[in-house]
């Protein structure tokens, strides 16, 4: 029983963490609550679907092409939509929702609402302590670790990383110091969308793609980001694992209630926020606290 919870929790947590990384990054740096983040994840999925399933291209090249196209799309949508309104937070929120709805409806029109499959990297499973986990799930966790480490290295060791952290801390001073803030924003956006694309590539063989997949993932991503503290990457990854363990615990211990797993994780988020309003690792300035 307990090994079921631990192993499945790790599996789901890895998947959710991959999803949440990019969202936290873009919020932490650009303070943009981009609700269309999971829509990029969906677009990437559909591009992979078109390339790999319909056109029959090999999986790895189609994933790379899909990520590139999604990054381009992310950049274009950022330039066209988000850049000019990034001062007004509420407008950013709403325009990203409108963008996500636009993509959803376009895909609904072109592909229909049924679930579509993406060919998996590998089939088969491994049995650990009596619990069966598919290789695809392992790949998801593996990629999560690799991306976490690389993003961490990027932020702490490279020049770009310094620039991103500087802009995240204080945009105006960073600008004064000579950092091209607009370029940093665009690059952060590209990195975030690339992370969404990678998340999609590993997760969609498990989840399948369909035009409404962004809604469910958005709730998970938002819950994890908020629980961990908006702006803290470490926080969002840990929160993703917490939410995953909660969900798996509900499924395992209360099987008749496994339909409630979404509601329970959100409940956990609310409870934590009541106790600590800025999330687990959130940053808050003392003068803003009332």
């Amino acid at each position, binding site marked *: 029983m307990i090994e079921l919870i631990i192993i499945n929790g790790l599996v789901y947590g890895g998947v959710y963490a991959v999803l949440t990384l990019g969202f936290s990054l873009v919020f932490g740096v650009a303070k943009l609550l981009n609700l269309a983040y999971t829509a990029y994840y969906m677009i990437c999925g559909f591009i992979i679907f078109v390339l790999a399933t319909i056109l029959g291209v090999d999986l790895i090249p189609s994933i790379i092409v899909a990520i590139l196209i999604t990054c381009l799309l992310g950049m274009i949508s950022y330039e066209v939509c988000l850049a000019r*309104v990034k001062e007004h937070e509420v407008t950013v*929120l709403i325009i990203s929702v409108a*963008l996500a709805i636009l993509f959803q*409806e376009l895909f609904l029109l072109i592909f229909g609402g049924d679930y579509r499959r993406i060919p998996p990297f590998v089939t088969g499973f491994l049995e650990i302590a009596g619990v069966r986990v598919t290789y695809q799930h392992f790949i998801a966790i593996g990629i999560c670790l690799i991306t976490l480490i690389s993003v961490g290295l990027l932020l702490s060791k490279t020049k770009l990383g310094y620039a991103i952290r500087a802009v995240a801390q204080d945009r105006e001073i960073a600008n004064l110091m000579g950092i091209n803030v607009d370029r940093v924003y665009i690059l952060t956006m590209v990195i975030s969308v690339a992370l969404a694309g990678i998340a999609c590539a590993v997760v969609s063989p498990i989840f399948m793609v369909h035009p409404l997949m962004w809604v469910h993932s958005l*709730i998970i991503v938002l819950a994890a980001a*908020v629980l961990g503290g908006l702006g803290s990457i470490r926080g969002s990854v840990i929160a993703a694992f917490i939410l995953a363990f909660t969900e798996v615990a509900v499924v395992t211990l209360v099987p008749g209630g496994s339909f409630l797993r979404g509601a329970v994780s959100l409940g956990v*988020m609310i409870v934590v*926020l009541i106790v600590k309003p800025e999330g687990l690792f959130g940053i808050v300035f003392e003068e803003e606290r*009332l």
Partner: protein
Amino acid sequence: MTNYIFWLYHVFREQILDIPGRVIALVFFILILLLPLITKEPIVLRIFTFAAIFAIYAASWDLLAGFTGQVNLGHALFFGASAYTVGLLSIHFHNLPPWFAVSAGSVAAVMLGLLAGLPALRLRGFYLSLVTLSFPVILSGFILLFHELTGGEVGLYGIRPLSNSRIIDYYIINLIMIFSVLVMWKLTDARSKIIRLGVILAAIREDEIAARASGIQTTKYKLLSFAISGFFGGVAGGIYAHFMRTVGPSVLEMTFSFEAILWTILGGMGTIYGSVTGVYILYLFVEFLRFHPIGEQIRFVLFAIIMILFLLFMPQGICVWVRHKIEIQCRRCKIINLVTRHYCRSCGAPLRLER
């Protein structure tokens, strides 16, 4: 007696006819009430009735978000809670008069709203928004859990209708809409000398710390705005339940919460008439496109594109832009005048600086 009529006429002329924006509102209300005389097509009346219900719903969101700055991403909670309360009451107590059921539903929505507002007090900005997002999801979970009571994912049926005829339904609902919108507008009017709520809410929205420094109890007013918003959201949900005669978990969908926001933003946040305008423009557009065979397919894509265009080029909303075109505010006495005037109608000052 005649003096009274003259006085009434003067008030009418000064408050409504002299202000172009309000003339448009008056014309709009008259047209809404005259609609059944133009067409009796049931589908048209149904669409306009839904538009009225959603107008109350969107206006109640605006009251919360536009006036106190608390962006509520889970507004469907009030709508759904009231709809289910009305449904349960109407089914178990037959022949319960609708006004009673709807009031009870609104009260239930308010209670839930206050319960939801309590964690919101400690939270700010995005945290608040994302927490409010989860409330309808949790309520849906409860509804599925107590399925014997609530009908699970199928829902409740057998709710008593508002009246026997589609046209009388239409009038009842539209009169409720006009009344609610006017009440909400009056409550939040920052210029009112009698009701100070509007000014206080505006102060809280602009700078909460300064408002607190001035001695305003922001906590109380924020909770009050949650309550009022919940009440009117509940009114919308209650009459929806009576109109549809069935209620299901679709009233708590996340996309439904987002729709209120999108409609309001199109019309203009921070003004009650903005949300009503947004609903009547956008919802009617999407619905009437269904009559065209190609339009039926692409109507949601067009909806999203129009939203994005408006958010990029007119983020303050269409109402503010229209008002800017037809009205001008006198700099000395702050009275609103028709834009074609040269001198203010009350203080006589020139409205524009001449060269």
